[in-house]
């Protein structure tokens, strides 16, 4: 039967056979992670290009337009063309920039979000590193973006960029709180921080956490949108106010890295949402007789959540910076705390001491 786990075992078997042939079996511990990182990078690059295309198509159809349709079938290669264009484009730099931070910021933005992908389980056993503190790791790693954005805004020597950087710092730090708080009930129920463990729990429990934890799901999606600087929370790069915000002065490859980073952040947060609330690689109820591999289910759910985030972007206006703070601190955080308390009370009543 074709499952993600089988494929991984097959590939790793082949690799180890190859190591043995080459006589470098002792280096497997070094080469294996490199290979998985490269595979993950290739996957994420292709997937993000697809997402950019998808966003343009989704927005176009929502607006009664056609969207990209010139390069390749249905315009699928449009983003490839754009990526090539961005790569070979002149890198315009402001003269009075702060050179080192200006150079490092896009790299940090890209790497920090990309590192989140490491613990995402695409299928049972298909994960680069199944950390037992997966959620903690993701939340910690994605927090790096704020440093990148603040550095970019500061070092660009541009007033719009600086404003964007400040806004981003305030926003991401505030929404980090509600993001964490919305995840807490899941951790309380499952008693594990490992993403794979949470999916396994949902499999055994027979329901997905979106049912008992719909409030947490909404808060998580909202906070994740804000974390990824997506509309309606895109105030750091609000183009009608701040031109481009923190990336006003970036062009070429550096801009592409910010751009890529934003989309990877969307992928990571959607993947976490799928894992936590939508049962990860589990098939839809009553459809498991189809024997569709788990990673297909995972990707389907992932695209659904990403579509939702895109629909938000193309439907809603943008919040003002102080209203954004109000919303985060006065609505999301209280509700998620109430949610935690309610979950605790209900689960205590149902299961006594706790789920374990």
């Amino acid at each position, binding site marked *: 039967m074709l499952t993600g786990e089988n494929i991984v075992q097959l590939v790793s078997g082949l690799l180890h056979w190859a190591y043995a042939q080459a006589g470098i079996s002792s280096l497997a511990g070094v080469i294996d992670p490199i290979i998985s990182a490269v595979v993950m990078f290739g996957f994420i690059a292709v997937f993000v290009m697809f997402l950019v295309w998808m966003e343009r198509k989704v927005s176009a159809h929502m607006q009664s337009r056609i969207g990209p349709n010139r390069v390749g079938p249905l315009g699928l290669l449009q983003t490839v063309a754009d990526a090539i264009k961005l790569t070979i484009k002149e890198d315009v730099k402001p003269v009075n920039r702060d050179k080192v931070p200006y150079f490092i910021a896009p790299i940090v933005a890209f790497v920090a979000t990309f590192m989140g992908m490491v613990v995402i389980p695409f299928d049972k056993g298909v994960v680069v590193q199944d950390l037992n503190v997966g959620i903690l790791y993701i939340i910690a790693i994605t927090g790096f973006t704020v440093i990148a954005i603040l550095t970019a805004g500061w070092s660009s020597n541009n007033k719009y960029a600086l404003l964007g950087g*400040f806004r981003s710092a305030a926003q991401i730090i505030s929404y980090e709180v509600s993001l964490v708080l919305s995840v807490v009930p899941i951790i309380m129920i499952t008693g594990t921080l490992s993403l794979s463990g949470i999916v396994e729990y949902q499999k055994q429990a027979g329901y997905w956490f979106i049912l008992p934890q719909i409030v947490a799901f909404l808060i998580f999606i909202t906070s994740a949108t804000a974390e990824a600087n997506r509309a309606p929370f895109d105030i750091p790069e*609000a*183009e009608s106010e701040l031109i481009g915000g923190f990336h006003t002065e970036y062009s070429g490859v550096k801009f592409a890295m910010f751009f890529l980073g934003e989309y990877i952040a969307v992928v990571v947060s959607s993947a976490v949402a799928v894992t936590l609330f939508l049962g990860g690689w589990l098939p839809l109820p009553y459809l498991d007789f189809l024997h569709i591999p788990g990673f297909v289910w995972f990707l389907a759910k992932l695209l659904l959540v990403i579509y939702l985030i895109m629909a938000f972007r193309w*439907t809603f206006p943008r919040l003002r910076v102080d209203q954004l703070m109000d919303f985060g601190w006065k609505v999301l955080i209280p509700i998620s705390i109430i949610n935690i308390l309610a979950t605790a009370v209900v689960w205590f009543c149902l299961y006594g001491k706790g789920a374990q």
Partner: protein
Amino acid sequence: MTDLLLSQVKLSGESQFGTDEYVVNMGPQHPATHGVLRLIVKLDGETVKETIPVLGYLHRSIEKISENRTYPQCITYTDRVDYVSAMSVNLAFALATERLMGIEAPARAQWLRMVFVELQRLASHLLWMGAFAGDIGALTPFLYGLRERERILDLFEMTCGQRLTYNYIRIGGVMIDVLPEFVPKCRAFLDYFEPKIAEYEGLLTYNPIFLERTKGVGVISPEVGINAGICGPSLRGSGVSCDVRKQQPYLFYDQVKFNECLETAGDCWSRYKVRMNEMRESISIIRQSLDRLEPGPIEAKMPPVLKAPTNSEIYSRIESSRGEMGVYLVGDGTAKPWKVKYRCASFSNLYLLDELTRGWKVADIMAVLGSLDMIVPEVDR
């Protein structure tokens, strides 16, 4: 202006760590200023301390050029005064000239003018709605607005051959009679368009984010609004009855039934709501005008060369899409006007921007600017 910018550079003398004003120069090229308006914004963090509009980047001296053109030739320039609502400015100039020279346009021409001016109001409000939503961050209504606007422009093109600068409403009548299929097509458009307004409202009106951004922002009180010369839908949002169509009826506006849309709060949301309601009223006016459209001549009998009487002058006002549009003409007995003055709604509405944004956030500048429905060529002329 340079002095003003230089004065910001000086450090405060009292403390080594004195704070400076954060001066952001928005425009002339900025996504939210709808053209080449420049705003010098002094900030304290995110809070706006002062907004100084710098005008003149689109000053094309239309008033000076018009002094060297004959009266009919001036109409081609009125198209460019407010290109989003060119029919209204055509009408303003044509009406002023007719009153100056004592010409009376025939009834069919008057009804046609009403149809086209109200269609233009729809087109202008649609574009405004899209731009306003875009300023606030919702990008989709812009496309929806343009989609419907295209159909209006198709109606215009079918009739007069142009989509933006029509030169259609002329002195003493209109340029050309409508085609026989115009009336059914126009009615079909109105039937198609009317339910769309509810869709836009579904996207925006009670959207919580939209409400947050517009409710209570940029409040113009009636007294301040009147005193500062705010006019049109922007003043009607404060509850002041100021519709020229009601107060000083021109064309046949006294013969059609329509409501003057008023809101009381005076904030951005009220101004938005007034314009959305005005679209519905415009549909009703167009329907009534189409009903009353009867065959007849479309232009008055006029001398081949139009000359204004010596020492004659006229100040004639209409309600254009953006508010009160006045044309002041002074005739000197020749075929060319001695003086032309366009009193434009955008110019007087923009005046209050500083007061409305002071103490608010940067993003509110865009909301207020958008809600005032400002068109830069009309400001600068």
